[in-house]
C-alpha cells in the first residue's frame, strides 16, 4: 500500500468503468490476431492439406486422400535419403557447433582480453544475412578455384582440386561446415553469458576447500550452466533442422537429393513440383520434431525463470 493508492485520479475512476476483460484483452488482441492469422492458421491449414492431393495447379479441386501422402513418404527411397541427411545435419552440425562454441565461449571468458569486442566480432557470422554467409562458403568450396581445395592440397590431403558441391558423395558436408560456422558463435555467446553469470565466490570457496580446476569445472561451472546449456542445445537443434538457406544457396539440395534436408525437400515438392499435399505431409514431420523441441524449450525456460526469480 502506498500513498498513491489513495490518490485515485479522475482517469482511474473512468478506467474503472471499463470492464476488466476489455482492459486486458484489447491490448493483446492485435498481436494475437497477427500471430494467429500468419503463424497458427497456416499450421492448421498444413495439417488439413497433408490429407489431400492438393497441387498448386488445381488448389480448388483437391480431394481427400487420407493417409496416402504419408504412405508415400514411408515408401519413398528419396525421402528416406532426405530424412537420413536431416538426421546427419542435426547430429553432426549441432554437436560440432556446440563443442566449438563452448570452447570459444570459455576462451573468451577465461583466457582472452577485450572480451566484449572479441565477442562482437565472433558474432558476425551469426548476424550476417544468411545468403551472404552461404555465398562466401559456396565460393570457398568451389571446385575450380576454391580456397578450401587449395588448403587441402597444401596440407597434403588431396593431390588436385576436387569437385565438392557437385559430387553426391561429398555434397552434404559443405553446407554443414557453413552452418557450424554460423551457429558456433551463437553457442559461444550463450556460454560466455552463462559463465559471466556465475559468481566468483563459488570458485573462491571451492579453492579454499582444495578443489582442482577440473573439479571446479565439473562441480560448479557445469551444474550452474545446465539450463543455459540445455537452451543452447535446443536452439542448435532447432536452427539446424529448420535451416534452408545454407543448403539452398550452396547446392540447392543436389545433385539429386544427396544434400537435401527436410526443409529443402518441402520447398522442392511445393514450389518446383507443385505437390502441395505431399509437401504438407512432409511439413508435418518437421512440425512434429519442432513441437517436441519447443515443448522442452518451454519447460527448460520455466525452470530458468523459476530459478532466477
Amino acid at each position, binding site marked *: 500500500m502506498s500513498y498513491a493508492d489513495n490518490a485515485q*485520479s479522475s482517469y482511474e475512476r473512468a478506467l474503472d468503468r471499463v470492464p476488466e476483460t476489455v482492459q486486458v484483452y484489447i491490448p493483446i488482441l492485435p498481436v494475437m490476431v497477427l500471430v494467429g492469422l500468419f503463424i497458427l492458421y497456416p499450421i492448421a491449414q498444413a495439417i488439413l492439406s497433408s490429407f489431400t492431393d492438393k497441387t498448386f495447379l488445381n488448389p480448388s479441386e483437391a480431394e481427400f486422400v487420407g493417409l496416402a501422402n504419408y504412405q508415400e513418404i514411408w515408401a519413398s527411397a528419396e525421402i528416406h535419403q532426405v530424412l537420413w541427411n536431416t538426421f546427419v545435419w542435426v547430429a553432426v552440425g549441432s554437436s560440432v557447433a556446440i563443442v566449438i562454441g563452448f570452447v570459444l565461449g570459455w576462451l573468451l571468458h577465461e583466457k582472452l582480453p577485450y572480451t566484449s569486442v572479441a565477442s562482437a566480432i565472433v558474432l558476425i557470422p551469426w548476424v550476417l*544475412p544468411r545468403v551472404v554467409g552461404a555465398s562466401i562458403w559456396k565460393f570457398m568450396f568451389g571446385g575450380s578455384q576454391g580456397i578450401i581445395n587449395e588448403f587441402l592440397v597444401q596440407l597434403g590431403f588431396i593431390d588436385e582440386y576436387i569437385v565438392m558441391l557437385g559430387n553426391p558423395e561429398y555434397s552434404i558436408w559443405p553446407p554443414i561446415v557453413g552452418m557450424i560456422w554460423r551457429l558456433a558463435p551463437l553457442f559461444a555467446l550463450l556460454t560466455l553469458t552463462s559463465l559471466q553469470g556465475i559468481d566468483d565466490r563459488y570458485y573462491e570457496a571451492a579453492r579454499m576447500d582444495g578443489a582442482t580446476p577440473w573439479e571446479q569445472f565439473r562441480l560448479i561451472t557445469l551444474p550452474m550452466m545446465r539450463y543455459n546449456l540445455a537452451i543452447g542445445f535446443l536452439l542448435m537443434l532447432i536452427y539446424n533442422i529448420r535451416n534452408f538457406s545454407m543448403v539452398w544457396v550452396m547446392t540447392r539440395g543436389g545433385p539429386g537429393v544427396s544434400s537435401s534436408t527436410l526443409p529443402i525437400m518441402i520447398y522442392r515438392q511445393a514450389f518446383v513440383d507443385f505437390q502441395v499435399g505431399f509437401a504438407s505431409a512432409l511439413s508435418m514431420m518437421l512440425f512434429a520434431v*519442432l513441437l517436441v523441441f519447443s515443448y522442452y524449450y518451454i519447460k527448460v525456460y520455466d525452470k530458468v525463470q523459476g530459478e532466477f526469480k
Partner: protein
Amino acid sequence: MTTDADDPTAEFRKNQSWLYDSTAGGYVRKTAIGLTTALMSLFILFPLYWMVVTSLKTTQEIQQIPPTLLPVDLSFVGFEEVIYSSIQQGGYTGFVESTFGLEVASSIDIDVLGLIFNSLKVSIAAGLLALVLGTIASYVISRREFVGKNALMSLLLASLMFPGTAIMVPEWELINTLDLFNTHTALVLIYGAMTAPFVVWLMKGFFDEFPDSILDASRMDQCSPVETFLYVIVPMARNSLIASFIFAFLLAWNELVFALTLLSGDKATVPPGLLTFVQGFNTQWNVVAAASILVSIPVLIGLAYIQKYFVQGLTGGAIKG
C-alpha cells in the same frame, strides 16, 4: 565480479595470468590454448576476410589458381559494377553521366541498391509493427493477471520455433487468398507476426523489472495510464525498445524463405535478389562479394548496438547471465 569494482585491472590480470605461467605444464597448456585460439579464429574469421579480399580483386585474379591471399592489383571493380548496374536499372544513367561525368556501364543486371531499398522498406515497417503491437501487449501481460496468461506466453514462445520452412506452403496459400501475392505488405505482416512474440517476451522482461514506485509517482501527478505509458515508461524503456526494433529489423533483413516464395521481379528484397546472383551461371565472385558487403552494413551497425541485449533477445530472456 566483486573484485572488479575494487581493482580495475583485476579481471585483466586474472585473464592473462596463464600467459605468465612458466612451469613445464604451463608451457604445454599455453601452447594448447594458443593453438586452439588460432584455429578457432581462423575458422570464424577467414570467411569474412575472404569476402573482403575477394571484393577487392579483379575478375581475372579471382579465376587464378592457386588463389592469391592478398589482392595483387587492388581493384574496386566489384563495387563499381554493383553501383553502376543499380544506376542503370534505376534509370539514372543519363543523370549520373551528365552530373558527375562518369561513364556508367556494367556487365551485370541486378539492381542491388534497389534490393536494399526494398529490404529497408519491408524491414523498417515490420520492425515498427512488431514493436508497437508487441510493446502494448507486453505491458498489459506484465502488469495484469488474467485467465490464460501462461498459456498465451507459452504459445508465443512456441510460435517463435515454427516460422520459416515449416509453414512456407500454407503461408503461400494464405497470402494468395488474401490477394497479397508479390506485395511488400505480405512480408511486413508475416515478419511482424514472426517477431512480435519475441518483442513481447523481451519487453515483458523489462516491464517485470520496472519499479512500481515510478508508476505510483506518475499516478500522484494525475497521469492517465496512457499518459504514464507514453511519457514515463516509453522514455525509460528506450534502450529495450531500440534493441527489440533492431532484432525485428534484422530478422526481416535476413529472411530468405518467404521473400523467395512470395515475391518476384523488382519487388525482391536482398536475400532472394542476392540468391539469383549467386546461383547464376558464371558468377562473378568479386561482384557478389562487393554486394554482400554492401548488404551487410546495416547488420553490422545493428550488431554494434544490440550486442548487450543479444542473449536476452535471442532467447526471450531465457538465459540469465
